Every structure is written in C-alpha cells, then in structure tokens.
C-alpha cells in the first residue's frame, strides 16, 4: 500500500494532541500576532501512528539485516542505551540549570571523558562537537589556535590530505581557509613516509589521516609520518571514523596523533538514527590540549564545574550552544561500561576477524585492489571481477537489495575503480556472515553467467525501484505543494 505525504492525509483543523486552552487570553505580543494561516496538516493519533509505522516499513535497518557499509560502522544498537538515556534525571535536565543540581550529569561526562582519553592515550577531550565533521572543525580550529599562539597561523595554510580521505576532511579544511594538498598513497594502499616528506614544508599546518584508512588498511608508516610532520612544525589530525578496528587494541596517542574525533554514533553505537544525531568528541595531545574549546570540565574537590567561558585562557572558544550531545554521551557510556575494556578490545578484534573472514571467503571470486593482504575491520574490493559481465558496481549493489541486503559502500574511496567497501562489524554471527558470502557468490556466478537483467533491473522487490535522481536534481521539488 502506498503511503501519501501527511499533507494529503491531514487537515489543518485536526489534531492528535489535546491541550487545555486558556479560557481567555489577552495577548502581550505587541503587533506581532500571526494572522495568516500556516497550512500545517494535523493527524489524529491513530492516523499518525499508521503513517509513521507504514513509512518505517519502507526502511532497511541494522535490526532487520546486515548493514555492511564500509566506513560507516553500522553495528548492533543496544536498547539499554535507549532506556538509560530516557531516565528523567538525564532526559529532563536543562543545560543551563544550576550546575549544583546537575552533578550526576557532569560526573557522567567526566566518566565518559576518562574512558575516551584512556582508550586513545590522549590528554584532553572536547565533548561538544555534534558529529564527526564537527569534530574535524574542532580539531582544525585547535590546530589553528596553536599556530596562532606560535605566530604561524598566517603562513601555515596547507593541510595534507590523502586522496582516499572522506569528503568531510577537505571540506572542513577549506571551511577554515586551509588549502588541501593531496598526497598519494603507494601501490600498497598506504601513505609512505617519503610521500609525506615530499609534501611537507613551512606552509603546512597539519596532515589529516584516517587510520585505519578508508581502503581498510592500517597506515603502517604512521609513526614515522607523525614524526616527520611534527619535525616540520605541523600537527597530525586523525579522522577517527575507523577507530572501531583498534579500540582497546592500540592507542592513537601512541601513534603521534594530536587531535582525533570519535564517532560515538559509530564506534560506540549510540545509534545512527537514519542520519543522525551523531556525536564527535575530539581528543587532543598535550600540545593541543590548552586550546580545546569551551565548555570543558574541571574537578574542584568533590564538585565538578563546567567551564563555559574562556576565562582568559587559551581555549579557542565555543563550537555550539550548550555542552554537546549529552543524550548520546549517556548511550555511549552505557555501551562502554557494558563492554568494559576487555569487551571493547574483543569487539575490535571480532570486527577485524569478520572482515578478514569475508575477504578469505570471497577472494577467489572478487578482486582486491592492493592484492590479497590482511585488512582491518573493512575489506575493499574493486570491480575488476565484473569486467566483461556488463554489470556495473552500482548494478551489483542494487541486486544485493533484492537478496535482502543493504549494499556495501560503493565508489568510495575514490582512488579505487568501482570500489566496494564492506564492513561487517563485530555484531554479525558467523551464520550471518556465511549467508552473506553465499549470497554474494551466487550473485557473482549469476553475473558471470550473463544474467545481466538481474542486476540492471534491480531492485525489483524493494519498496521502490531505481529512482530518477537526475530529474530530482534538474528540477528540484523540495517541498510538497497542492495539486
């Protein structure tokens, strides 16, 4: 059954909320009372329930199936997290109420900070960034503030970024007036010390690396690279999107990282919610710690205090209203305490094990751009194995939908032709991985047999077949209108 938009179901005089209205009201609105109708449709509660339940059933979800999106870490989202985030003492707490009445919340933030710092081996943390990309801004701002303190902000305007980086990296750098300078990875898929050395210079503010990188490989030259960058007067920003491979196993601080964001909604499963909210706390090395944004926590004896203003210190300022995604902190801490340090390490190991298991189970029928070598928590294939079949990477992905799977990440990283990046995470059982392998092998065999239409016409069993994205962009219709 089709589910029309609310504007075709609701009416402006219907409401699913009963509100006792004030008997008489003499407005004190100056001359600013609204006179015109808004046009907002209302639904009675049963109508709303049905509308949204029906919409939900048109979505794929990790609860209903494997979600092998490389670089996105779609893992199990425990319901305990949702439950504790809704405790009245957390959910019904105002960010500006007296800090003396919110010491439990501050203690929670302190405990989360302790975990994040210990897991990463870093010195300070900014909890306020609202998502990974916001964390990148935060980290780069701290770097720029440090350069200002050194008097080099005006001269160091270049940020080194590998071609394989997430789009947010160059976008964040550019937003702050940095010029991204691309560094190439070697034939082995990782950045070499030499490539970095060649790109370094007195104009370089920082390097932005993802490690493990977006090809699923550990940047094994990382320590040397960090040393080179530091020697050249730059800072090392690490994109933490892939922390899921090494949490509890190795510490970014030991790698020489100066700033790194952590995606609480990925690594710590808070969850993703169809596109957010996320949460991107940033950890800092000792060198950058003084420049961390407000607010930050101070312990004063028994009491915790959230410092909300610069107080003349070196903090680079405020990134957002209030203190960050507190509801997400509660969820992340529940997740972290549930695992413990041992469980987090085990989760990382299982994630890496599962990715390599898929690699081993598929390496005879799919192709790997950097040869058959160990991967971290995600495995990267390219489209060579589809050559001559008439099936493109996109078609292959869409055919997976008909088999009941969300496709892997495709066409990313950009450095690999027809990239297919698979991240199973530690949440899948072996049974689930085996079924996934069997499905992919069946599809590949089908492609090789020339059953092209199974791919080019896919998906056929989804709530929609392929959508005309070109038409959508050509003549954008961004809101409903009558008729």
């Amino acid at each position, binding site marked *: 059954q089709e589910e029309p938009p609310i504007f075709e179901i*609701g009416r402006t005089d219907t*409401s699913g*909320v009963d*509100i*006792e*209205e004030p008997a008489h009201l003499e407005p*004190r*609105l100056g001359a*600013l009372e*609204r006179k*015109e109708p808004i046009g*907002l449709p209302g639904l009675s509660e049963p109508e*709303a329930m049905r509308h949204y339940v029906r919409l*939900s*059933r*048109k979505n*794929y979800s990790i609860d209903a199936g494997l979600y092998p999106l490389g670089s*996105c870490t*779609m893992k199990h989202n425990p319901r*305990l997290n949702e439950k504790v985030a809704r*405790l009245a*003492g957390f*959910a019904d707490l*105002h960010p*500006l109420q007296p800090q003396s*009445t*919110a010491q*439990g919340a501050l*203690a929670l933030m302190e405990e989360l900070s302790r975990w994040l710092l210990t*897991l990463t081996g870093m010195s300070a943390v900014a909890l306020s960034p*609202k998502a990974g*990309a916001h964390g990148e801004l935060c980290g780069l*701002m701290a770097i720029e503030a440090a350069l200002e303190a050194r008097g080099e902000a005006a001269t160091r305007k270049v940020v080194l970024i590998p071609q394989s980086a997430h*789009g947010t990296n160059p*976008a964040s750098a*550019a937003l702050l*007036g940095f010029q991204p300078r691309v560094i190439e990875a070697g034939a082995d898929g990782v950045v070499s010390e030499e490539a970095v050395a060649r790109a370094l210079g007195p104009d370089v503010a920082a390097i932005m690396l993802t490690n493990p990188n977006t090809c699923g490989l*550990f940047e094994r030259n990382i320590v040397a690279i960090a040393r080179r960058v530091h020697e050249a007067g730059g800072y090392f920003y690490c994109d933490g999107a892939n922390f899921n491979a*090494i949490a509890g*196993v190795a510490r970014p601080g030991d*790698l020489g990282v100066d700033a790194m964001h952590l995606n609480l909604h990925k690594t710590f499963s808070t969850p*993703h919610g*169809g596109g957010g*909210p996320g949460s991107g706390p940033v950890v800092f090395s000792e060198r950058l710690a003084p420049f961390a944004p407000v607010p930050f926590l101070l312990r004063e004896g028994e009491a915790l205090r959230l410092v909300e203003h610069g107080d003349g210190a070196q903090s680079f300022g405020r990134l957002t*209203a*209030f*203190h960050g995604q507190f509801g997400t902190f509660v969820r992340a801490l529940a997740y972290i*305490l*549930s695992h*413990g340090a041992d*469980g987090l390490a085990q989760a990382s190991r299982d994630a890496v*094990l*599962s990715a390599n298991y898929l690699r081993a189970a598929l390496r005879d029928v799919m192709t790997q751009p950097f040869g058959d070598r160990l991967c971290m928590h995600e495995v990267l294939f390219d489209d060579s194995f589809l050559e001559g079949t008439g099936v493109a990477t996109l078609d292959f992905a869409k055919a997976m939908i008909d088999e009941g799977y*969300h*496709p892997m990440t495709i066409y990313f990283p950009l450095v690999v032709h027809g990239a297919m990046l698979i991240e199973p995470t530690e949440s899948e*059982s*072996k049974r689930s991985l085996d079924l996934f392998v069997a499905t992919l092998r069946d599809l590949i065999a089908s492609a090789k047999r020339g059953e092209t239409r199974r791919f080019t016409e896919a*998906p056929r069993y989804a709530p929609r077949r392929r*959508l005309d994205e070109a038409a*959508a962009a050509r003549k954008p219709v961004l809101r409903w209108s009558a008729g």
Partner: protein
Amino acid sequence: MRYLPLTEADRTQMRDAIGVADIAALYADVPSELLLDRPLDLPRAKSEMEVERLLSAMAKRNLSAASAPFFIGAGAYRHHIPASVDHLIQRSEFLTSYTPYQPEISQGTLQYLFEFQTQVAMLNGMEIANASMYDGSTACAEAALMAHRITKRRKAILSGGLHPHYADVLRTISHFAGDEIVALAPDVRAREDITSAIDDSVSCVVVQTPDVFGNLRDLTSIAEACHRHGALLVAVFTEVVSLGLLKSPGEMGADIVVGEGQSLGNPLSFGGPYLGLLATRQSYLRQTPGRLIGETVDADGRRGYVTTLSAREQHIRRDKATSNICTNSNLCALAFSIHLSLLGEAGLRRLARANHASAIDLVDRLAGVAGVETLNESFFNEFTLRVPGDAARLVEAMAEQGVLAGVPVSRLLPDAGLDDLLIVASTEVDTAEDREAFVAAMRGAL
C-alpha cells in the same frame, strides 16, 4: 559479552579459514610496539543490570525538571512530548538505519524528511528548508556563511538580542574563517538601532525573535534596510513553538531563517541532541548547506524521494562544498515532524496560546513581588526579570527550595554587568501551583 555473537569455536574456525594462527596475526600491519600488551586501567565488562544501576545512580544525582517546578529556557524548552512520538522514533527501522544512501530501501526516512522540509518551510513562511542541522546555534553559523557566499561579502552584524551562545559560535567560526563580526551590545529591552549599522559592506544581519531576553521583535524594517544595502536578513529563533502565535519571519522579509527545533518532540537532555532548522528562498537553493530531499519518480513511475543536489555536499564536492556537514539530526527531525504532525495547525496554535497564557500568568503573579521588575513589553513564553541583588545567587537559593527558577544573564554573559537579570520561561507544562511555588520561593529567597 552479550553483544558479541562470535563464540570461541567460531573464532577458531574463522581464523582457520583466513589462514592465521592467532588474532595478533591480523594486526600484523600495526607496529608491534603500538599494540597494547597490558590491560588498560579501565573496568571490565558489566552486566546490563549493573550498568543500569550505575547510570540510574548518576541520574538520581540530578534535580530533573520532572521533580521540580521548572522555569528554565534561554534556548532549550521543556514541553510535553506525546508518548507516541517517542514510541515511533524508537521503531527499529527509524532508529537503526543509516543515512539514506540507497533510496530504494530508505523511502521511510526520505519521505519523513521531505515532509519535515515542507513543515519547516511552512512554519517560517519560506520557500524551502533543508533536512536539519546539528542545532540552532550551528545552523545560525551556517546561515552567516551562506549569506557570505551569496553576497560575496564577509561581514555579519549580530543583534544584541541574539542568544550569546549563538553569537559565540558565530564568533568562533568567523575568527578561523577570517570573516568579520560586528556584535551589538546586549540589548535587554529590544531598543537597539540595528539599521543604522547596515551599509554596503554588510553580508547579513542576524536578529533573534523572540530574543534571548524574551522580547518580540518586528523584523520588517530591518529586512528593508538589509535589502536596500544588498545584505540579507538572517532571522533566528530558539523557541519554535512561538511560530504558532507569531508572524512568521518570512512574512517579515527574512532571507534565511534558522532556529532551534528542540521544543517539538525532543527532550531537554542537558543540551543535546537537538536539531537546527534552516529555511530560505528557492533562489538560494544551491548555496544552502546540508542535506536536501527531493521528490522524483522511480523506474515504474511511482512517486518517491531521494537525496538531491548533493553536488553541493562534501562527499562529492569535497573542498568546494557548501558545508562540511554529513551526519545531521535526522532522528530529532523525525521527532519534530511527528510532534508537529500530531499538533497540526490547530494544535500548534493552541499549544502556543497555552504557553503564552502560562507566561502571562506568571508575569502577573510576579507583579506582586516587591523589588522584582519584569522588563519586557512583549513576550511569548519567556521574559526577563530585574531582581534585587545577584540573580545567580537567587537561582541557587531557589533551587535549594526545589524550584528551578530560570537562567541568570550572567551565566550567558559573565562580563556584561547584567548580574541582576534573570531569564524566566513558562510553558504549558507548568501548573498554576508550580507558578505559585515559583513566586513563593522567590519571596523566600529574596
């Protein structure tokens, strides 16, 4: 560990299939000196019961709005959220899905975002809206950057009624991006002359209404002044419920409207996650930051929705993107949209009237408290009091009596010399007894 499905037997089989002897072999690329060879100084795994106990204990150390007469606003507001909203956003298919990159199996998310965009545009009297930002403050900063791109100027004027956090966020990003900010002095009674500050170098003027002190502001003349000088008017709100009772920013000539959407569908949650709303004119489409959902058709000609104009976005355009935002606030936007669908126009108007009535009632009760003065000539559900002495100390004293009384202006503006001002909000959730308790506690604390 209850969240990890692999058993030791599975792990052994899998290692065999890979051809490695132990798990360490899988980390061969990691320099061995970097691998942790000892347990971190952190606790081990805990049962669900134990975690719940620990977190509940932390929660109990907070004085929650549920357990006290509550009058705090200043950018985040307590409202009643229908039980169905929270139920629906916890549907697995909403809660545990990713960004809708595969539209064929993401129509649920895409359609509700399309509906959300429409609702936000309607509410603000604007042509289009995006699919949400992180929160009101970051949306406000994005609006200024957007105005800079559109006007190709780099100077923003900030009203003295703008929420100080919002101004701070704008100040931070502008500093690093090399843009100019002219921030007017705190404007407690909405008497600033903003138009005279506008000239042809100005990219945008950022004005909040209701402002942080609760005053309502007519934007019409500011919009005219902006447009005379080729600048844009960025209208800001922190209390979206006010739009049920107030003239829309669009009607008053705003070019970009941004605001905080928390009030609908989203709990206070000590400051986040919230959601930023951003609406603007169709002509600024390609300079709009963030995700946009568009209507289209599928291969069978059926109506459907896709993420569109992503050529603006960071994952395609990289360093040329209109913003770096990727993950936004979808689930909060869903909560917002469900709550607003349930309210509908009639319900939103009633809700707004109930809020206004609450605030009026409290203002009137406070008229009888000697030494306390309400500064506002107009207000929606929030207003500013001048109190004898230090407002922050007063708030602490009232908290000790179990009343959460409001936000001292010094909390937001510590150096402005406005320590005797208190921002007080009253919503539909307060009862007459709560308001009487406020008055009694204030009398007691003064």
